[in-house]
């Protein structure tokens, strides 16, 4: 067992006065180090709930989540989470937004600050370090949000539809961009999306969830013949269409 993250028979339901909404049922899967996994499924099926559980923001009603063989609570494994919107704080400069996680975790060392500067530099935000987030474009904001997560050096990166707030053009570019960044930093990543083409262009493996209550209905390994697998190149490769049709049928069995 060399899974960095393992989920065993996870169940989760939301409760309110009207009753119970089952969100997830019998979800089990594992991820190896350095793997990029995408989770797709109909909107509102519980994809984000799954990420919340992995991040420890919610407790599963039943089932186990293990990180490097330890229970989530006891594990020192660092999980980074990128939300749907960038959530940059408008009253802080880009640089101080990037440092937010370090401040909270009392890790404001000279080394960590240098790392933040370096990441801003690599990903083309060095000139905007002292700017307010409102001066950045949507794509730049998303990159700043990613750097805020990366500077904490997470072992696993959770991405919750991080491109959905962007317009189509920017979305392709930023998706490509961030996909490359994650590959380059050799991060283990889980991407949640309702956009099939995004999942196929980025992931090594795709987990297809059913409608609510979500169960895993299929797992698809994504491999491309070409060595060159930048997300944009993948979109033009012949395999892309095959994977797309395969998963599309799974999601829309009646068509």
């Amino acid at each position: 067992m060399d899974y960095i993250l393992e989920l065993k028979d996870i169940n989760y339901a939301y409760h309110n006065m009207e009753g119970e909404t089952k969100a997830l049922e019998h979800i089990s899967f594992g991820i190896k180090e350095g793997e990029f996994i995408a989770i797709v499924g109909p909107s509102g099926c519980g994809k984000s709930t799954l990420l919340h559980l992995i991040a420890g923001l919610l407790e599963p009603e039943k089932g186990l989540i293990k990180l490097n063989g330890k229970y989530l609570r006891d594990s020192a494994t660092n999980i980074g989470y990128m939300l749907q919107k960038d959530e940059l704080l408008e009253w802080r400069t880009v640089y101080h937004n990037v440092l937010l996680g370090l401040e909270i975790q009392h890790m404001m060392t000279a080394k960590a600050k240098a790392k933040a500067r370096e990441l801003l530099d690599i990903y083309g935000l060095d000139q905007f370090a002292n700017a307010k987030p409102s001066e950045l474009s949507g794509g730049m904001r998303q990159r700043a949000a990613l750097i805020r997560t990366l500077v904490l050096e997470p072992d696993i990166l959770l991405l919750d539809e991080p491109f959905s707030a962007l317009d189509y053009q920017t979305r392709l570019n930023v998706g490509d961009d961030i996909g490359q960044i994650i590959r380059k930093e050799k991060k283990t990543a889980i991407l949640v999306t309702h956009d099939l083409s995004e999942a196929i262009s980025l992931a090594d493996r795709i987990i297809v969830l059913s409608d609510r209550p979500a169960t895993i209905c299929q797992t698809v390994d994504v491999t491309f013949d070409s060595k060159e697998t930048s997300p944009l190149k993948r979109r033009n490769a012949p395999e892309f269409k095959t994977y797309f049709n395969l998963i599309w049928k799974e999601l829309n069995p009646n068509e």
Partner: protein
Amino acid sequence: MNELSQGQQHYLNQHRRHKRIVRVSRIAILLSFLFLWEFAANVGMIDSFIFSSPSRIALCFWGMVLDKSIFLHVGVTLYETLVSFILVIVFSILAAVLLWFSERLSEIMDPYLVVLNSLPKSALAPLLIVWLGANKTTIIVAGMSVAIFGSILNLYSSFTTVDPEKITLIYTLHGNRFHALTKVVIPSSIPSIISTMKVNIGLCLVGVVIGEFIGGREGLGYMIIYGSQVFKLDWLLMSICILCIIAMGLYSLINVIERIYQKRV
């Protein structure tokens, strides 16, 4: 300087003209009011013993400047107002933070806060006099009582309307509720803290004057009550005029604070 187009020049002229008309009209209203008042008192249309007159008020003011008693009364009222204002801000922020930390506590306290907020606080003043005595503390507490409950409710509601996703962000960075408070809730509530301050400074002044009515030995509220009892209406009207100026001054003080904050952001 770069050349302005004719259209822009025209717009700027229009704008300046508008501003000038507003300013001149404001001053004209004040001057004609003062003139009519003075005129009516001098020709005997109104009884200047009852209605006083601008010149009598000015003379009265000058007299009190000479014997320095005016500085005492204005100073006391200002001091009591500012102390109660600062205490209101400190206590209401603390209380709102406490309520924000415990949703259950806030739900439990809600009806009490609503009742206390809608209660006419002037009704409490006599009680405060009996309990705390006729002194400055009582007057400061009276000033606080008018503002504090509304202030707590306002601040708490602005704390709770902070974007929940921003708070989730703090948790995803492995922060706790305290971090959510200091990194997100308080900074994003600063504009509403300032607007609450604007309301409170006026309310504190109201409370302090009420307090001075019944428990004061000095201060503008005391002068108003004393003036009405001994029929020295010059005192009374002068005090009201000074209260107008103080209210305006305190309000612009908060405006200055707001502008400094906006420049920093």
